[in-house]
């Protein structure tokens, strides 16, 4: 082999670099950096991507729900308590249309039926409980409030009559004449405008020969016409109105609660949107501030080391031992009145929240500050600030990102606990919190589970998707897991 080369004539040799010809080729492919690699590995993890999408949807809900909803957060309609979720598109399907299937006694059935709240009767059966009684199984429309007594000023009354004539809608219904009975209990019951028919003392309705209920409408003695209003001495009108129509007259909209209404007749959809906004905004801003403080604190600790590190570590050690619940409570008691409950919450979260980030950054600084490239940078005259932020900190970005994305759900969780327990009191402000909604819904868990259902589902989904997303991100940013197929 060697001998072959001996025979090459000298003229055939030339300097390789003389004409700047390079025979090694440029890379065709683009280089894959740390972030690109992380994103590639993240997108391979289907579960995390799905969680990320759900997370975006939840955030979109928080942003848009209060805008979409026609109700304000604290808008109350006390006549519409515990209405079931209703969506116009599902009207009449029996699902998400504000109706529910109900098993009730004969009396209750007649009551519901008398003001049109019965949509469909499924079954009629008898059951001894303890005496033999007739029961009904029927679909019940929670949006049918029925009749209500209202008192109006003369001007408002005129407007109402005008509205009736203009639209051809009947709002006023005859007043009731309770003279058929002297039973105290029945008289009390007839104060409720929906009992407009004759009752026996045990509340069983009385029927006429054709099996219909007998209305007890008040009739004018002279003209024989129904009496629709009572005028009290101060020219205030007392009327018996169909409340569902009256509501439209009064507010110009039909009652429609996408997620149902709560014990005050407030819209759960709008409230949940507001609570979600608070949770997400608080979670992200706390995480952001904590990262900022943690990075600076950890960088100083790790970079300068020595006495500074010792003292700063001791401070962090002590701060982290304070149970966060106590800190949060104390801040609420002290500062909620002065700066508002939300800022007080924010400060309490920030006071100890940065420590974990600082510890992580400090570790990274200890690992990298003695490396040759840092020495080289210093030799070239780079300032401390430049070395910290340009040369060492980028090494810690992966751990910072993953640590902070998991900080968000923990803040949201703590906030919901505190507002659930009533330590954070938001009743005075015009926002609400998921925790406060859960607390309010807890009392009606048995008969109106939808009040608690939506906030509970929302916060669970939020926590799950944040955790799955955060874990995916952590794995993606951890180069040591690269190529390891778990």
């Amino acid at each position, binding site marked *: 082999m060697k001998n072959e080369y001996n025979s090459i004539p000298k003229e055939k040799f030339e300097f390789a670099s003389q004409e700047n010809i390079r025979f090694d080729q440029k890379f065709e492919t683009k280089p894959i950096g740390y972030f690109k690699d992380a994103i590639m590995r993240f997108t391979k993890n289907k579960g995390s991507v799905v969680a990320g999408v759900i997370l975006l949807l939840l955030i979109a809900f928080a942003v848009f729900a209060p805008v979409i909803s026609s109700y304000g957060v604290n808008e109350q309609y006390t006549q519409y308590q515990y209405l079931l979720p209703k969506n116009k598109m599902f009207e009449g399907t029996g699902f998400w249309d504000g109706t529910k299937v109900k098993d009730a006694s004969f009396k209750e059935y007649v009551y519901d039926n008398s003001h049109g709240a019965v949509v469909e009767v499924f079954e009629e059966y008898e059951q001894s409980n303890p005496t033999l009684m007739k029961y009904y199984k029927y679909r019940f429309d929670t949006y049918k409030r029925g009749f209500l007594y209202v008192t109006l000023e003369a001007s408002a009354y005129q407007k109402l009559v005008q509205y009736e004539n203009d639209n051809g809608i009947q709002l006023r219904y005859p007043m009731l004449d309770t003279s058929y009975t002297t039973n105290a209990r029945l008289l009390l019951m007839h104060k409720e405008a929906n009992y407009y028919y004759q009752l026996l003392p045990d509340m069983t309705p009385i029927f006429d020969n054709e099996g219909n209920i007998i209305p007890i409408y008040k009739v004018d003695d002279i003209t024989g016409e129904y009496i629709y209003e009572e005028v009290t001495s101060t020219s205030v009108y007392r009327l018996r109105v169909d409340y569902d129509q009256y509501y439209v007259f009064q507010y110009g909209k039909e009652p429609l609660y996408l997620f149902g209404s709560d014990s005050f007749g407030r819209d759960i959809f709008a409230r949940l949107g507001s609570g979600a906004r608070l949770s997400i905004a608080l979670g992200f801003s706390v995480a952001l501030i904590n990262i900022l403080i943690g990075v600076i604190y950890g960088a100083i600790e790790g970079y300068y080391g020595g006495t500074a590190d010792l003292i700063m570590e001791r401070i962090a*050690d*002590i701060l982290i*031992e*304070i*149970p966060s*619940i*106590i800190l949060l*409570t*104390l801040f609420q*008691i*002290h500062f909620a009145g002065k700066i508002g409950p939300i800022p007080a919450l924010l400060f309490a979260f920030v006071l100890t929240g940065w420590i974990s980030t600082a510890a992580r950054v400090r570790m990274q600084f200890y690992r990298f500050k003695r490396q040759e490239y840092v020495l080289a940078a210093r030799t070239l005259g780079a300032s401390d600030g430049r070395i910290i932020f340009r040369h060492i900190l980028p090494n810690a970005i992966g751990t910072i990102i993953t640590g902070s994305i998991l900080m968000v*759900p923990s803040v949201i*969780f703590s906030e*919901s*606990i505190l507002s*659930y*327990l*009533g*330590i954070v009191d938001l009743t005075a402000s015009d926002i609400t919190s998921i925790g406060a909604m*859960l607390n309010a819904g*807890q009392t009606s*868990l*048995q008969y109106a*589970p939808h009040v*608690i259902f939506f906030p*509970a589902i929302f*916060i*669970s989904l939020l*926590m*799950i998707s*944040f*955790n*799955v997303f955060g874990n995916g991100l952590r794995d993606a940013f951890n180069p040591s897991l690269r190529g390891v197929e*778990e």
Partner: protein
Amino acid sequence: MGKYIIKRLYLMVLSLFVIMTFLFILIRLLPFHVAGAPGADNDYALILREAYGYNEPILVQYGIFLWNIITKFDWGVSMQISWLTPVSKVLFDRLPSTMYVNLFAILVSIPIGLGLGIFAALRKNKIEDQIISVGVMLAISVPSFVTAFLLQYIFYSKLGWLPAIMTATDESGWFSWDTIKSIILPVFSLAVGSIAGFTRYTRAELTEVLTSDFMLLARAKGLTRTQATINHALRNSMVPIFPMIVGEFISILGGSLIIENIFAVPGVGKLYLTSIQKLDYDVFMFVSMFYVVIGLVAALMVDLSYGIVDPRIRIGGGKAE
């Protein structure tokens, strides 16, 4: 080891002192509230506050406060919750309820958690493992109060099998069927989280141990898979799990604010909340310090138990031994 413990204890006392000072100042700066407990006497309360030094400068107050603790273990008296009862008695009266519920929760969660973890590790990447992983993820993410509401709704509202809140123990005794039945829901609400924690840890540790070299050696020298797993893998995987159990056991004293509130467990968590609502600051201070001490002791015990369970881990000491 001894040196390390002393150092840790010294740091612990330092932390405790600093936190206590911090809490004391913050709590004493709160506005004064007239006594509101049943049978309270406001004039007497004012005299009592004078005696406890409430009208002195804050540092003098702190001196009196510390002196009372050191000489008499006197942390003050409750004025809102229970008139003139020493706060330590107020708290220790409620401790049994908390411990009772939490002890059951731990006794339930350790076997289930470890069992599921071991099962998942042995069936790694099979369908059973994946189901368990999803379950663990759900259990860890879903807030405990949502779990509690769900359990309450299913087993109380819908099925009617179990009571919604804990039965008062003084009526029926600790171990009557009524009491035990009434703590099933709180116990499981508490246990869901710890079960998930144990499962995740056990699975992670065991899978790591199962792939290590000494397991290959164990199989190579002729042990069956079961023998190797039980004798070698399980023991080694318990190293980080044992301290976790120790930590859980200490934290049973603290209890859970949320669960105690939902299920009306008359425990420490509930007391904490009541003391805030009723503005009983001495009780609040004592319960807070109780939580701080539990946290510190739990952290210390967890650290020390690492060294006890695994002699390979040398705690403290110099760089080279």
